[in-house]
């Protein structure tokens, strides 16, 4: 009899905890961020296609599927390092085929020369170009990611990439400080 009670009690306890755990696993479920989203969050979102994919998300997908992690030129070494950390692989130097200069740039339309063909608008991945057919076009500099994609389609070569100038807003404090000394 005691045996039966013991079995019953333990059975009940087991069932209770089982139910509790089951409920907790549903109630407190953590939505694991899928790896693609995590990689995408690291990429600079320039949407330039230099990696050979039509935008950052597709490249994130490709990296998740085993593509090399060193193809994003705008991201540079920092991005490679972060992806390497995330994926648990060795960081590698940036793909040789990219140009080294990845200072931030924005596109600039020489407005007198623009013929209003709208080709650049179609090329811009983030809709940062303003204009209409046969009207002068211009770049919304704040939205431009510096992806370079609008430069090639322009039939009159009136788009150029300009390095973002250093201002007091984005300056990075590289100077000597003024130390204070006790004087007597």
């Amino acid at each position, binding site marked *: 009899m005691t045996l039966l009670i013991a079995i019953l009690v333990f059975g009940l306890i087991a069932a209770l905890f089982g139910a509790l755990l089951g409920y907790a696993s549903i109630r407190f479920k953590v939505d694991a961020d899928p790896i693609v989203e995590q990689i*995408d969050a690291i*990429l*600079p*979102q*320039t*949407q330039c296609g230099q990696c050979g994919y039509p*935008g*950052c*998300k597709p490249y994130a997908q490709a990296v998740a599927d085993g593509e090399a992690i060193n193809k994003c030129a705008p991201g540079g070494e920092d991005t490679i390092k972060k992806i390497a950390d995330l994926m648990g692989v060795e960081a590698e130097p940036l793909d040789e085929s990219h140009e080294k200069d990845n200072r931030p740039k924005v596109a600039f339309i020489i407005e007198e020369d623009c013929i209003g063909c709208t080709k650049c608008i179609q090329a811009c*991945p*983030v*809709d*940062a170009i303003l204009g209409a057919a046969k009207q002068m076009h211009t770049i919304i500099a704040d*939205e431009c*990611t510096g992806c370079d994609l609008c430069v090639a389609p322009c039939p009159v070569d009136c788009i150029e990439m300009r390095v973002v100038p*250093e*201002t*007091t807003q*984005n*300056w*990075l*404090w*590289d*100077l*000597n*400080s*003024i*130390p*204070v*000394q*006790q*004087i007597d």
Partner: protein
Amino acid sequence: MESIINRINQQKFWSFHGGVHPPEQKTLTNQKPIKPLSLPEQLIIPLQQHIGRQGDLLVQVGDHVLKGQPLTKSTNPMAVPVHAPTSGTITAIKHSVIAHPSGLSELCIFLNVDHQDTWVERTPCNDVATLTNQEIVKKIADAGISGMGGAGFPTHIKVDTKPDINFLIINAAECEPYITADDLLMCEHSESIVDGIKILNKLLNPAFILIGIEDNKPKAIEALKKATAGIEKIHVCVVPTEYPAGGEKQLIQILTGKEIKSGTLPIKEGIIMQNVATCYAISEAILHDTPLIQRVVTVTGQALEKPQNVWALLGTPVHYLLSQCGFDNQGMEKTPVIMGGPMMGFSLPTDTVPVIKTTNCILAPSYKEMPSAFEGNSAEVECIRCGQCADVCPTNLLPQELQWSAKAKDYPQLNKLNLSDCIDCGACAYVCPSHIPLVQYYRIAKAEIRQQQQQELKAEKAKARFEARKQRLEKEKRARELKHKKAAEARKAAMNKATPEATEAKSAVAAALARVKAKKAANQKSPSSSAISAPVETTENQDNKKAQVAAAIARAKAKKQAKPAPEIDAKENAKVEPSNTDSKKAKIAAAVAKAKAKKSQEKAPIQGQEQNQEQTDSLSLADKKANAIAKAKAKALAKKQASSNNDSSTASDLTIASTAESEPAIDEKDAKKAAVIAKAKAKALAKKNKESNTDNKVSEKNTVNVEPRKVQNTSETSTINDTNNISDKDAKKAAIIAKAKAKALAKKKLATQSVSEEKTMHEQEKGAK
């Protein structure tokens, strides 16, 4: 709150963590009155002199401006205007080095002083009570007042807050060594300062007003006590001297014992802090209608003969101030000049930079006084982990840890260590026995973190815009497809309604077309089955795009119905007449035959020639492609045929077949062009069959476009010319046939492909027989 006031009345205060006692060096200047300066020759007025945004320019080069005249206009709440500090002529508006540690240039107005010092018209206000709060706030904004102690936050925003204010704290601590500007201002203009405090009182209506002042300014304390005597609300709180007691959070903690949590503003606790110099500027602006055009600057340091506080017009170049105070460059090429105090200031890149609203001190030290300022940071050695920095940090940070992380650029760790709470006070660097310029590392790290955050924001935005664009393109594509489908359905519906038998006729015609084409293919290609299967394979690989091209070609061909082929002879014509299996078919056949007959009369000889040429060309690569396309069509049509009458080997079929035979000769490019034109025409014709004039025009235009491209392919040209002669009804039919074919092609599926392949082959064999 009462207990706080009780404690204050007993002159008992709280204290903050850490703090240092650097040599004060205030006696250099605090015994001399504020000296009014003679006017300099030129003033350089930066458009932006505070945190926030710059205003819009109101003046042009060459304009003559009067003292106090606004030079910019604020269009943004975070922008405050700047005013002409004296009368004169604007000689330039250009980028110039500004008072910023980076030595970068920003837009400045260059004013050549005319020494007349003529004021604009002012309307002094004798009674503040007559003004509403809105008016006062607007006046403060228009006077261009921004915080004059620290970073220069626009004052009108700070004083335009709604929630209940417990404490208005007037910051008169002036804890940084050397600086005595506020001290002297309080000694000389305590009445005006109290007037300003009264105005703030009216605006904010705080429960208590506390003036926090360090005990090293006895004269100023006395003057303030005298000026505030009899005002219940105002308490002059004399606090012990300790650097940085003048920090906002530190002073709040000293006076009220409240710690402002990391990342929150004092306003959350019902506390607002204003600087004494700001109070003075407010009283000047409201009572005397004088905008912020000058301020007290402590010009000090042992490199000067006569260090003194001066009334400097905003925009006065630093070298002018120095020369007025007897600057001696000690026989050195480059003597450092520091703007701000020795703890928080920065070395000026050049001495042409102008005084701005936040400039409280110009420090020109002698070599003996501050040798390190001359030599740079050569003295830095490794951290010895003494922990002194953590002891003195007023914000309870761990400067040593911060330093390691800053050097390693470990930004997440820096955030964890609350780097953002660091007030750049420099206390840690001051005590560091290893001479590590700690604040320097923090400033770099802060700037980088800020930039990273901005980049992240930008990336976020770019991502959103990218996604939005993708969605937009997707939507547009869908909308286009829907439109096309609707149009097609509308046409189909119209056809079905007009003639109930139309569907049957259509399928019959399509089937016929397929059979004839199959036959033609069999004729033109080699009779061996392998030759046939090759193009079929190609067909399988054809994607949608090719199918579309094929459809377009089909439409083009439909046009050619009217075109007679050389093979058409009396025999075939004869066949047309007896075939009246179906009234609809007969109608089409009749129309086609009619057109053909006409054509054959006109163009038979030429067509014969063309046909020969075509056949010789037929082995070219382009032809192969065309054949492949034709085959694809044939397949699709064969499928259709299965459901339609199998015995419809009528004359009309043959007619169409013979027409189609000239098709492979058109090379792909031509075919494409023709297809595009045909499409346009078919559409135009179907739509506008009533306005036949317009139709003809369109057709003619197309013909003109095509002709130069098709030098050798006159048959094509003639076809298009022909189109002009087609009656409305014919045009409609042509369009219908083309549509049917296009639809069949679009619907083509892999599963049915094999079936249709067989059928095609069957048909081809049949045709060959």
